[in-house]
């Protein structure tokens, strides 16, 4: 077996109130894909930021190509051949693809004048090596998320990277895009690049990786060979207990209809969508990424304007609402992407949670701190949020824990209908089941719940009824016995296989 190209030993990193990394040792061999897994806040991103020169470790050593090295800043890391593909993409939308690939390391003459020809040519070479369909002069802002990710990965060719780190790269990719990403990763692997792959998705990890290292509370629990283990064992290492492969489905009685949608259409996005949901019911929306599910619920919530369609809310017909009206009616939407979910990053978790509902936490105009605190504690426990306290700015929380505060923020509003768009994206396996339980509790308390998910077991596990969507159309509705993976796949693929009607 090849010697490691990169070895970390005894890496320790503390932040005020947290030991994010506690004597972590980790290595990467050339040509392998090494998974790094662990709960939200376990320290995965922190460890990789140490490698990328963004954080300086308090203690420990980094051995790279047999030499102890210090990585002072991101550019130094890149020039050594260590490249981090961030959890949130790190690009300048207004600049060209070529400029982004070489950001911070543009070729110039002695006077600082850019050598645009060389920049273009080199970028083109990097793009060609990756088989990208876009050119070096395209503006990054006009590219899709998947293409933007390719721009970041193209840096691996431009800087002849020896180690490439992917931090939850598939979070916003469609299945096809994911397959392309995996092809790209395997290509890098063949070039002898050592790859670190961070993900919460077990199927991806077992499909792609050679070894798995588990982090828990900043400590390494162990490194195992992927072939010699299974998801159950890895999960146990991650959360310290076995997770029942069991979904808690709400045991509730359905009462009055809360929302009925008829013939909802938005040109170019979806057409003729009709469904209804009752109190106590969990309605699942299954489909591939890009099927139009998010667009439908955003329209319900007034974020997008529908062309056609009627809504009945608790039996009475209403005009399509604005977001403010939707909130006042008692709808809550937890959208899929963290960035637009409007966490106030400098504020603490508690203030973020109660922000949209300040009126109910104030006595006249003075905030009731005790009541706020109680809410904070309730959701911190229910969602097992890892934070040092109500005041810790959410900007310093791990990605998954930020996500959980978004959930808390909408749940504590006490809505009548809650719409959850990919509620467990970026959430670790342990907390996933906590969220599933929470969904069940909500339904049992009489709320109507709509859950959008691209994960089949999740939709089937939590929902009472599932709607399948493909290319902007509802292509099937399943209940009870009919709710099986085969039926869902059939419905969706049947539709996709048909020659396009439009």
């Amino acid at each position, binding site marked *: 077996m090849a010697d490691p190209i990169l070895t970390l030993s005894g890496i320790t990193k503390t932040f005020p109130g947290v030991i994010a990394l506690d004597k972590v040792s980790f290595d990467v061999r050339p040509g392998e894909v090494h998974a790094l897994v662990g709960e939200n806040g376990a320290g995965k991103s922190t460890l990789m930021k140490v490698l*990328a020169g*963004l954080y300086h470790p308090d203690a420990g050593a980094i051995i790279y190509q047999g030499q102890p090295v210090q990585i002072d*800043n*991101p*550019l*130094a890391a*890149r020039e050594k051949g260590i490249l981090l593909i*961030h959890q949130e993409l*790190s*690009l*300048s*939308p*207004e*600049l060209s693809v070529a*400029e982004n690939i070489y*950001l*911070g*390391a*543009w070729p*110039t003459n002695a*006077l*600082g*004048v*850019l050598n*645009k020809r060389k920049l273009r040519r080199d970028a083109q070479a990097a793009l060609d090596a990756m088989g990208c*369909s*876009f050119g070096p002069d*395209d503006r990054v802002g*006009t*590219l*899709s998320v*998947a*293409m933007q990710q390719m721009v970041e990965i193209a840096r691996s060719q431009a800087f002849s990277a020896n180690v490439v780190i992917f931090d939850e790269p598939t979070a916003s990719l*469609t*299945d*096809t*895009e994911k397959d*392309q990403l995996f092809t790209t990763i395997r290509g890098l692997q063949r070039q002898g690049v050592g790859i670190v792959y961070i993900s919460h998705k077990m199927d991806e990890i077992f499909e792609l990786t050679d070894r798995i290292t588990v982090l828990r509370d900043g400590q390494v629990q162990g490194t195992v060979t992927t072939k010699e283990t299974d998801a159950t064992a890895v999960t146990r290492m991650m959360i310290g207990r076995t997770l029942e492969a069991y979904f808690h489905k709400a045991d509730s009685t359905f009462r009055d209809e809360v929302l009925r949608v008829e013939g909802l259409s938005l040109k*170019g*996005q979806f057409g003729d969508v009709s469904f209804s949901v009752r109190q106590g019911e969990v309605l699942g929306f299954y489909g*591939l*990424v*890009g*099927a*139009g599910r998010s667009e439908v619920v955003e329209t319900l919530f007034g974020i997008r304007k529908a062309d056609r369609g009627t809504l009945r809310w608790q039996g009475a017909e209403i005009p399509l609402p604005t977001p403010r009206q939707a909130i006042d009616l008692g709808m809550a939407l937890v959208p899929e992407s963290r960035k637009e979910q409007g966490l106030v990053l400098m504020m603490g978790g508690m203030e973020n949670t109660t922000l949209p509902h300040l009126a109910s936490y104030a006595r006249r105009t003075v905030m009731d701190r005790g009541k706020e605190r109680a809410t904070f504690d309730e959701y911190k426990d229910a969602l097992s949020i890892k934070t040092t306290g109500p005041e810790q700015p959410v900007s310093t929380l791990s990605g998954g824990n930020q996500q959980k505060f978004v959930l808390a923020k909408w749940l504590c509003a006490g809505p009548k209908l809650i719409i959850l768009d990919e509620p467990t994206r970026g959430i670790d396996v342990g907390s996933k089941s906590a969220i599933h339980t929470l969904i069940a509790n909500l339904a049992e308390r009489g709320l109507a719940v709509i859950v959008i998910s691209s994960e089949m077991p999740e939709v089937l596990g939590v929902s009472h009824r599932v709607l399948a969507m493909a*290319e*902007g159309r509802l292509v099937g509705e399943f209940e009870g016995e009919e709710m099986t993976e085969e039926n869902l796949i059939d419905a969706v693929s049947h539709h*996709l296989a048909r020659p*396009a009607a439009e």
Partner: protein
Amino acid sequence: MSATTSITKAGGHSSVARLLMRNHIWVFLALTVVVFSASSPYFLTVNNLGNVLTQAAFIGILAIGMTMVMIDGEIDLSVGAILALASALAIGLQDHIGIWPAVFVGLLSGAALGFLNGTLVALSGMHSFIVTLGGLIGIRGLVFIYTGEDALMVSDFSYTDYPEIYLGPVSLTAMIFIALALFFQWILSSTRHGRETYAIGDNIDAAHDAGINIKRHKIINFTLCGALAAIAGILLSMRLGTAEPNAGKVWELWTIIAVVLGGTRLQGGYGSMWMTIGGVLTLAVLRNGLRLLNTPNYVELMVMGTVLVLALLIDKLLSRQEA
């Protein structure tokens, strides 16, 4: 919509349409020129247009520096005060150290104050709005102390001859403005420093992650902005032959208006000197045209205010369409 074709480029406008959208201020400028040509016989004359260009030059030179700073995502409110100080020094020191050394000191004062602004912004983490607001007040105070609250006059009138150099209808002042604008456009588009300006204003985290030295970069741009303000001040003192302590008052606002009117974004990451030239000329044409029509001063202000809001509205609509 389908999953298989999802990896395609968004936004399908042709490059010509995009160019027009991104430089809509020139369309706007053309419109105002047409309107004023139709309503005043004096407007579309070589002499008048030459005058417009000269009048535009002072705000224009300030706007060049402001554009650099604004693409970085910052703002500089002290340019009017720096202009006044440089003009006062250039005239006040002439009798003691000679014309060119005095001009040089004026220039240096602008660069030094810009450097100070930049250093404070970069190192303290304070917002440039606050830092340069302090600069605006403090530097103006300095001007009053230096001038003793009275206008300074030149004694060597050869100093005021320079603005009388013309190339056809184009004054030296206007030529300097155009040359500087073109030079800085080249900096923005072709040098590493210029392109990094965009990178920083656009996504400061990405720029930081890429190892760009953000602090040094911002200090450079503030220094350039201060030096340019000083150049404008010196040219103004040559033209007037006096240095008023109140020179350039509220010019920082007109400068910001011109830059924003051109299409450069206040949030940073987007803009160009072409846009800024367009914005500066539009303001100058409006002002000149309204005066030719004998519009009362307050109406002029109202029209300018309306135009600004209108232009920004168009910008907003266009950028939404483009997205």
